[in-house]
């Protein structure tokens, strides 16, 4: 079984990328500051939007602020760098080495992404107080919501990794990724629900966003956390996430297969 045989390889890749996170801790800290500023601005804007009312559309201001704080904390934490890694490695021709490993490249990427996340974990200790001071933190309303959130969060991680991988694989077709990345970050960032929760979006926009996978990364898990799950019950919300995880895995399988036949190694 090559799956079992490859476990030590994945473990070693995870270990290596944990080390990389420690090496790049300066940029991780900058990321925390950026998230802190975003949280602060959103808190100010939404507090003023509530215009002194305790509740808008059945959502108390405090709950709203907790949603925004957790959302942006999570957006900071779940930002897989593998999309950029793929683009760089294709651009520089290093991808050739990745393709001559006995471990498939997609699985190498997942291991790398897992290591990145684990390496960032200690930084959460720094990020939490920053978020608490600049925004609003509260525990989930029940232990079920807490456990549900953790489960949903793990699926969200997987979806974020899958999306990053799909975007990165576009580099096999074109190396001009900057503009594409900007559009993706803007649309994706908004559609996760980290700036405006889905329940405050106008109907048409909300329906469009609900058809996209992005809400599964932030909106779905965080709405479970605050106790008002997206689809009414946290189980159906997680089922929606699993649906997207499976669909995206299928997309990756197809794109990856085609990318291999497209491979052009830059340079001699």
């Amino acid at each position, binding site marked *: 079984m090559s799956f079992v045989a490859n476990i030590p390889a994945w473990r*070693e890749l995870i270990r*290596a990328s944990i080390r990389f996170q420690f090496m790049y801790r300066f940029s991780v800290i900058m990321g925390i500051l950026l998230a802190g500023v975003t949280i602060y601005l959103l808190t100010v804007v939404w507090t003023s939007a509530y215009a002194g009312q305790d509740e808008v559309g059945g959502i108390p201001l405090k709950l709203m602020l907790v949603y925004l704080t957790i959302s942006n904390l999570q957006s900071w934490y779940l930002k897989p760098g593998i999309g950029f890694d793929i683009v760089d490695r294709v651009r520089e021709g290093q991808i*050739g080495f990745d393709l*001559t490993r*006995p*471990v498939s490249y997609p699985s190498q990427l997942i291991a790398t992404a897992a290591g990145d996340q684990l390496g960032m974990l200690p930084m959460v200790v720094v990020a939490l107080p920053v978020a608490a001071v600049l925004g609003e933190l509260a525990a989930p309303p029940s232990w079920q919501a807490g456990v549900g959130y953790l489960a949903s969060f793990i699926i969200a991680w997987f979806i974020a990794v899958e999306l990053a991988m799909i975007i990165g694989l576009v580099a096999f077709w074109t190396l001009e990724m900057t503009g594409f990345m900007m559009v993706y970050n803007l649309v994706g960032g908004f559609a996760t629900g980290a700036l405006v929760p889905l329940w405050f979006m106008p109907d048409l926009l909300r329906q469009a966003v609900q058809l996209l996978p992005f809400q599964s990364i932030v909106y779905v898990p965080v709405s479970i956390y605050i106790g008002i799950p997206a689809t009414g019950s946290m189980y159906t919300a997680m089922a929606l996430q699993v649906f997207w995880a499976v669909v995206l895995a299928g997309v990756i399988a197809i794109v990856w297969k085609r990318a291999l036949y497209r491979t052009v190694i830059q340079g001699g």
Partner: protein
Amino acid sequence: MIEVRDIAREFRRPRQVHGPLGGLRTFFTREVDIVHAVSNVSFSIDAGEVVGYLGANGAGKSTTIKMLSGILVPTSGTITVNGLVPWEDREANALNIGVVFGQRTQLWWDLPLIDSLRIIAKLYRMETAHYERNLARLDELLELTPFLDTPVRQLSLGQRMRGDLTAAMLYEPKILYLDEPTIGLDVVAKERMRGFIERVNQESGTTIMLTTHDLADVERLTKRIIFIDKGLVLFDGPVAELKHRYAPYRELHVTLAPNGDQPELPQMPGIIDIEETPGRLEIRFDPATIAVADLIAAVVASHPVTDLAIVEPALESVVREIVQSGEVRR
């Protein structure tokens, strides 16, 4: 071990439009230029062989190596490497091959060399004891100890290449593809590299395919050459045969005693050309017509000789001629 049949690989790229608004027109054009990197290449390599794969820049050498290692899929044709189709059984094939691309590194830029090697050992499913044994042996051959703990980005080119060779040989692949392994190295480093490649082939029976522009590599390491140009095989055979076709002559280089006489040599059949400078004679002759001993006897009889050398034509001049003429003599 390696079977290559009629492989071709083309690349498509949008045609560049020149003239007014050329950039914009290039963007919208649907025309493509097709570049034939490899047109029709066939060869087979036996286990344990060392083969020099030669050709000018852009001849298709690296493209072939990439198809052999499973990175690129040929447009047509078939390849089997140790019974596997490289791009279909990519992961199984990977366990059989080691790859060194002289202009790149497979090592992790920011990690110490030893960490990269440990990752590679795990990627290739090595047991710890096996890894340590092989590392110790490679360390002995390539003297890695002084820089094992140095991050790869701080290594000199020679050290980095030794690191890359170690990475490629760590898991004892049956086949080693070396794409310009001595590029940019100084004389000492080149020699070390060649010595290593030679030992690996002799001791482990590793099949080696080597592309290089340094023909000293080929003369030292390989008996067989495959020469490609514009994506076609021009020559496949022993180094000696290629030289023989191009330069069936030898040269006798004679150093004369200072202030000695320098009379004319008698006319003899088999002498093609004599280049004469004060104190020195370079006689080009056909060894099939005149025996070397007779020629030397004649020279020594008429000249005060202090030194003699018989020089074979250099492979380099042969290759230069092939590349310029674009064909190999029959």
